[in-house]
């Protein structure tokens, strides 16, 4: 039985379809990653889970409670850490946590105890009584995270929590998330950082264009690729025609699969080679026969980026670069304002 069930969720902003019949299930006590490039629909999904926006269609259940029909009850169960850190810069960190405690109806004795515990856990002693306006990005994020944890939520929802953070703050947050998960909290972590999801997530979904394109544990998804990932270049900058020809050569070799032409990396050829077979010698022979020389050949363990590449034909970085020019952040910000 899943702790969180998302069924066929759809959401559009005027002419943009942010989510398209998206479904997923999250087990209790797991750290669940949502991976995808900017603009994939992660933040929309997170905002629906946090009860900030309503979907156009579909259902969400947390603890078997319908999120859309009982949003107030759901708010008692969840803690939310938004992508954009919104602190009141006039208040001190402690005042902000005190304020947040009152919004969650925590009684006076418990709130002092909870605030102090979080100050200790997130190592905020030295600066918690300074005004939020003087904080660095890492400090702000730690206070924001503490605010989301004050009422001991069953589910913690984090939208890109480590974007732009210093290493110290990131490590403190990662450690806290691991501890919370080990203590039974269900954590939903949206990120476009591969290593973050790879290191922290028990399970994950990869979202692209508002749809789930892959889901499972990080190792399951990587193992599905079947072997080591190899990137081949015959020239520093090749072309489509040449790349397609090499692709044909590779597809004739037994043990080579999942061949992808990566246009953004100078038409390099990305493929999976069967670990059991010595394919490199055969590859060189076949290429030489067709009068191609190897310019570069790199072999690596499959990563989540390879999983994404396999599903979409582009790397996460390429997807982000291509999205960067298309998004109107000002318009999106206005649309997300109440």
């Amino acid at each position: 039985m899943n702790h969180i069930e998302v069924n066929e969720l759809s959401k559009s902003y005027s002419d943009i379809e942010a989510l398209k019949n998206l479904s997923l299930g999250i087990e209790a006590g797991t750290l669940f990653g949502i991976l995808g490039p900017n603009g994939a629909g992660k933040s929309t999904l997170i905002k629906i889970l946090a009860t900030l926006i309503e979907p156009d269609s579909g259902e969400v259940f947390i603890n078997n409670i319908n999120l859309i029909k009982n949003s107030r009850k759901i708010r008692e169960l969840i803690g939310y850490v938004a992508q954009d850190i919104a602190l009141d810069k006039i208040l001190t960190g402690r005042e902000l946590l005190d304020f947040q405690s009152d919004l969650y109806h925590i009684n006076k004795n418990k709130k002092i105890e909870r605030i102090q515990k979080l100050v200790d856990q997130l190592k905020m002693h030295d600066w918690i009584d300074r005004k939020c306006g003087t904080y660095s990005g890492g400090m702000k994020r730690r206070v924001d995270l503490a605010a989301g944890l004050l009422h001991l939520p069953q589910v913690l929802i984090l939208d890109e929590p480590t974007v732009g953070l210093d290493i110290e703050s990131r490590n403190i947050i990662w450690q806290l998330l691991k501890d919370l998960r080990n203590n039974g909290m269900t954590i939903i972590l949206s990120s476009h950082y591969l290593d973050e999801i790879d290191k922290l997530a028990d399970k994950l979904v990869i979202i692209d264009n508002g749809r789930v394109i892959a889901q499972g544990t990080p190792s399951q998804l990587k193992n599905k690729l079947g072997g080591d990932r190899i990137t081949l270049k015959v020239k520093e900058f090749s072309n489509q025609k040449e790349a397609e020809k090499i692709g044909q050569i590779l597809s004739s070799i037994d043990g080579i699969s999942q061949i992808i032409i990566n246009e953004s990396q100078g038409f390099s050829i990305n493929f999976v080679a069967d670990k059991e077979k010595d394919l490199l010698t055969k590859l060189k022979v076949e290429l030489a026969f067709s009068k191609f020389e190897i310019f570069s050949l790199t072999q690596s363990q499959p990563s989540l980026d390879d999983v994404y590449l396999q599903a979409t034909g582009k790397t996460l970085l390429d997807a982000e670069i291509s999205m960067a020019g298309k998004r109107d952040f000002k318009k999106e910000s206005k649309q997300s304002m109440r």
Partner: protein
Amino acid sequence: MELKQYNLFYLYQETFALTKRLFIQLQRRPSTLLAGILQPIIWLFLFGSLFSKAPEGFLPGVDSYGNFLGAGLIVFTAFSGALNSGLPLMFDREFGFLNRLLVAPLTSRLSIVLSSFFYITILSFVQSIVIMIVSYILGYGWPNLYGLGIVFTTLILLVLFVTSISLCLAFVLPGHIELIALIFVINLPLLFASTALAPISFMPNWLGWLASLNPLTFAIEPIRTAYTQTMDLELVALHAPYGDLTCKSCILILFSLTVFSLTIIRPLLNRKLN
């Protein structure tokens, strides 16, 4: 029953926290408070002096222009404060802080609106009292206890009326630039098109009509009457082109406007907050 008591306590807890936040902001950035006090005091000095040599009986029912002006400036101060009350909410919307409130399991999101009402009402009272004290020191009089009741009742109604409109604008307008621009456009013309600076008898006919329909006038006239030490709410307070209005009628019109505006903004606030 126990649940209802809890709900009431929670409503108090969250409203208190939200109001406290606004007062902490005010304490650490008191420029709004100081400007709100200084501006009408400067007006009181300048305008009071401007007509200091006006002949006796120049204005009906008062000894001096300063005496006449006091009520207008008290109302203008409360009005300006209430008109600006949407700004903190607009900034919370723009900077995402409102989402922090909306994700919390508030007993009622009405607490967000209530806190603004409490904050602006208290702020307006403080500013008005300072202006009343300065007026008194300048020799422009002081209302009796009954008059003070009229002053504060009128101010509460005006603050509720204008705050509800300002909060509504904070949700409807796209950003703080637009809200500030609208405040600039509304603020002074409404003051000049009221009986704050001159009685209707001094105005051209068209302006007299405007002034006698202006909500500020319905707040100014009862307060002006309160300064005459009267205990009679049936006294004519406003000689409008459409007829005479008593002090009681002015307060009732203001009350109706307040109820009307609160009724109108309720669906919008429900839609935006729920």
